[in-house]
């Protein structure tokens, strides 16, 4: 009897996995239903308003494939072929590279401020000044100082990412320093080992959250910077299509950007989930 009780019944390890998979599938199905409801609402509003001002989903999806290479309305204004694909690639590369650079700067800054009092006292005032100024006030200065150069357009994204990531890293490292780090020190870990093997890994979940927040806001900041002065990019297409009232093209451009943004966020969430799979 004892042996029978100790042996798990056949298939018991598979059932929880199946149940979990079923739950994920159901959640995914409900999510798709939610997206369908949003599109339904969009179609309803579009059918009740002027199609020139508020195009429906069908009209928007119809122009997307053609607009990838060339948007005729925009080409008519700029006298050169302008496609969503190139612009999307430009904006996406700018956003991803800048968020990565901002993270690489913000993470050590935050940990430095949490671990070294001198660094905190020296770095906090400039970061506080940057954090309190609305970013749109900084944009005209960046445009006046650096013109329409590619790196200048990413200035807002860079500042926002550095601020968000450094604050999250500082807060996480401070929390860890008082608890886990003491345990590590009791077990004989040196300061550098404590930082490398305890503080840094324990800060990662918070930093990943901050990266996702920065990434979500980055698309808007990048587009508005491009809208106010760039030679290419999604922001420029938004600016031109809104000026010539090409709302279908404008909707299609924004929809493409949102799809790419959602995919990038999902990839970061997946990679983050994998990196922090040890998390309780």
């Amino acid at each position, binding site marked *: 009897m004892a042996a029978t009780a100790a042996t798990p019944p056949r298939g018991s390890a598979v059932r929880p996995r199946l149940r979990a998979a079923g739950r994920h599938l159901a*959640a995914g199905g409900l999510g798709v239903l939610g997206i369908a409801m949003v599109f339904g609402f969009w179609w309803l509003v579009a059918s009740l308003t002027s199609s020139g001002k508020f195009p429906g989903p069908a009209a928007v999806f119809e122009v997307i494939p053609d607009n990838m290479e060339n948007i005729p309305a925009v080409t008519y204004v700029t006298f050169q072929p302008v496609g969503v694909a190139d612009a999307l690639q430009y904006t996406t590369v700018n956003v991803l590279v800048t968020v990565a650079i901002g993270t690489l700067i913000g993470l050590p800054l935050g940990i430095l401020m949490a671990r070294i009092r001198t660094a905190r006292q020296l770095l906090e005032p400039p970061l506080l000044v940057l954090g309190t100024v609305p970013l*749109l006030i900084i944009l005209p200065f960046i445009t006046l100082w650096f013109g329409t150069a590619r790196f200048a357009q990413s200035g807002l994204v860079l500042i926002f990412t550095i601020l968000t990531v450094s604050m999250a890293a500082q807060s996480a490292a401070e929390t860890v320093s008082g608890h886990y780090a003491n345990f590590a020190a009791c077990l004989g870990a040196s300061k550098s080992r404590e930082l490398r093997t305890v503080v840094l890994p324990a800060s990662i979940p918070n930093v990943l959250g901050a990266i996702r927040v920065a990434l979500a806001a980055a698309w808007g900041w990048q587009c508005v910077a491009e809208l106010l002065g760039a030679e290419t990019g999604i922001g420029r297409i938004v600016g031109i299509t809104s000026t010539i009232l090409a709302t279908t093209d404008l909707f299609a451009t924004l929809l493409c950007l*949102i799809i790419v943004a959602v995919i990038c966020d999902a990839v970061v969430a997946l990679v983050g989930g994998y990196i922090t799979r040890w998390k309780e």
Partner: protein
Amino acid sequence: MADGTTTPDQVVAASPRWRPRIRLPKPGSNGFLTLCSVVFLFVAWQVLSVVAGRTGVSGERFVPNVVDIAGAFDTFAYYWRGGLGVEATTDGGPVTFFGAVLGLVSNSLATMARLAVGLTLGFVVAGLAATMVCWSRFLRRVFLLPANAARMLPLLAMSPLFGIWFGKSEVGATLFIAFATFAIIFVVALTAIDGVPGYYEQYARSLGARRFRAYITAVLPAALPGLRGGVLLALGFGWSMVIAAEFIGQDLGLGNIVNRAEEFGRTDTLAVLGLFIVLYAWVSYKLTARAFDYLTRWAE
């Protein structure tokens, strides 16, 4: 004093223990390095203003210094439309300090009014929508994915759309702010209500409350503290939204001043305006945080 009495000030001044209250931090103390950092920033800023040179458009410095910023306040007089005994500069009136004050106040009030109406509208609609959606567990799960996808909306880049729909009207600017607020608050409210432990409702139900009453009096209030971060985030973002809305299509408001100052290369006006916007944003942030903390003072 004729009657021989002394005032509190005289007593304090005569006391041998009296010391001036302003004390600079000593080297090695906690605040000394912070003070050094602030002083370094200030000096670096002044040096940069000399080194960076001047713009070709207006002849103003690329990096305005303290004197430029203080002197730029009068430029707000250009944004006063006339009245209260001060003639508008566009009608040939002189640039005066009082005119500048009126210009700043009128534009600030226009911006604040748009922000207040837009934020309130966005909060109310998002709150109501989240309350209705979260009533049903099924609907909550249905809307969680679209709500999370809405986080990725390039809200600032969508301002031209509102220009197309509503023109340069007040309605367009206000609805743009309300839309952005809705996109932020709806997700936060959905997550906050979803995060309320199920036993809160079960306790209320076991005490005899009907489902609707338990939802209104137990679940929704319990979700309120979870909204704090979202509300403050929406407020901070709202300032950028209102500036963006006015920047692109309004004739009155701080965003319009930013637009015109950039057009004419007036870096000094931009800097002094930035200081005022920071001040407004800080005050509104503190007031909202206090109000929210008061509303949720019962929270653990």
